[in-house]
């Protein structure tokens, strides 16, 4: 038993650098991403990198089979349909979202969040949509709102299915935002004293009670998700849930802290294909 404990501690130590975010300070985003991948693939050599987009499902064939069956006839089609109507309905001035977003809004979701030099801050896809609305004289949607942003992005992101995540971090200001997000990811918080990394790095693929924990690589490509089949959850609302789980006060959705976290967190999925609107337990 003593033996086993020591082995366990040693196993913990190999991941210590990345688990604490120490070894990776001042690394480039690409180095960070590689280090995450190295950590997971060393621990789970049999799981293909491409399968990380399935999150915890990649670690459990039975749940993955159940997911595949549900995805044949998704129970959330009507919500995506609502989003399609919103997308296609012109603004009062006759313009549409497709008119004001880059590339008609197609194959762009993987570029967000992006750093906007002029604004000096991270811009999420929700922000870009709101900019489009206000530029056309429409009211901005409330960040993270299920009934507006939720439906709209559930449809709009499907226009980017298959695009490879492509988060760019260029220049010192962008780098600072990235570092800030990374700090949030690795900082312990809440009464229960967890960092995001405590679960999604150190314990990825491990059970917490009966819940298998997903790796952070592949986390950001498939939003929103429909939990239990029809409960729409956006990425930042999922962050909020994870903050609450450890009894921490979540930063507001669309706050600088959340947007920087999404920026860092999304870049970990660079090179993986987008697939919007999936089922999750």
């Amino acid at each position, binding site marked *: 038993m003593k033996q086993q404990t020591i082995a366990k501690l040693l196993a*913990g130590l190999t991941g210590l650098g990345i688990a604490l975010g120490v070894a990776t300070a001042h690394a480039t985003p690409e180095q960070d991403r590689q280090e995450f991948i190295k950590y997971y693939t060393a621990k789970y050599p049999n799981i293909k990198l491409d399968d990380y987009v399935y999150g915890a499902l990649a670690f459990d064939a039975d749940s993955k089979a159940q997911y595949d069956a549900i995805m044949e006839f998704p129970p959330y089609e009507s919500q995506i349909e609502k989003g399609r109507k919103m997308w296609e309905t012109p603004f009062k001035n006759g313009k549409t979202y497709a008119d004001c977003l880059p590339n008609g809004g197609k194959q762009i979701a993987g570029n967000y969040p992006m750093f906007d030099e002029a604004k000096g801050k991270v811009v999420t896809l929700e922000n870009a949509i709101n900019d489009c609305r206000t530029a056309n004289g429409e009211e901005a949607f409330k960040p993270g709102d299920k009934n507006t942003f939720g439906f709209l992005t559930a449809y709009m992101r499907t226009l980017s299915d298959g695009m490879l995540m492509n988060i760019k971090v260029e220049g010192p200001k962008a780098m600072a935002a990235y570092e800030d997000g990374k700090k949030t990811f690795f900082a312990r918080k809440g009464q229960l004293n967890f960092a995001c990394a405590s679960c999604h790095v*150190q314990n990825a693929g491990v059970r917490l*009670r009966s819940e298998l924990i997903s790796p952070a690589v592949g986390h950001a490509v498939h939003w929103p998700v429909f939990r239990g089949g029809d409960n729409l959850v956006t990425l930042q609302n999922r962050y909020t*849930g994870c903050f*609450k*789980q450890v009894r921490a006060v979540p930063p507001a959705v669309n706050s600088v802290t959340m947007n920087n976290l999404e920026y860092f967190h999304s870049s970990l999925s660079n090179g993986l294909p987008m697939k919007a609107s999936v089922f999750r337990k």
Partner: protein
Amino acid sequence: MRKLHQVAAACAIGAAVLTTSALAQTPAPKKEETGKDIAFNRTKGNCLACHGMPTVPDAESTGLYGPPLIAMSARYPDKAKLRAQIWDATAFNPASSMIPFGKHGVLTEQEIDKVTDFVYGL
């Protein structure tokens, strides 16, 4: 004050995975809670989220973050050391994902005493 703080924290975790469905299973505290009650309760120790207890038949669907808790009195001849691990695991392993139950006031000192006695007997 401590008490209020804990009640507030307990209320805040409604949405938590750590607690879902657990509340329904935990019998309403009739009399004084035992160490086992506290260890099993998802809003208190919730040790089973991370530890198996191979010698306890009703320790079900346990997680694997931490090692199984077994033969504890043999492995921790010094009970104070066992208590210290529960009070703040990060003191021994800074990278520990185990919750610092005493240091962060998740459990009261008295609750930690009871849990220690329970775990010592495993």
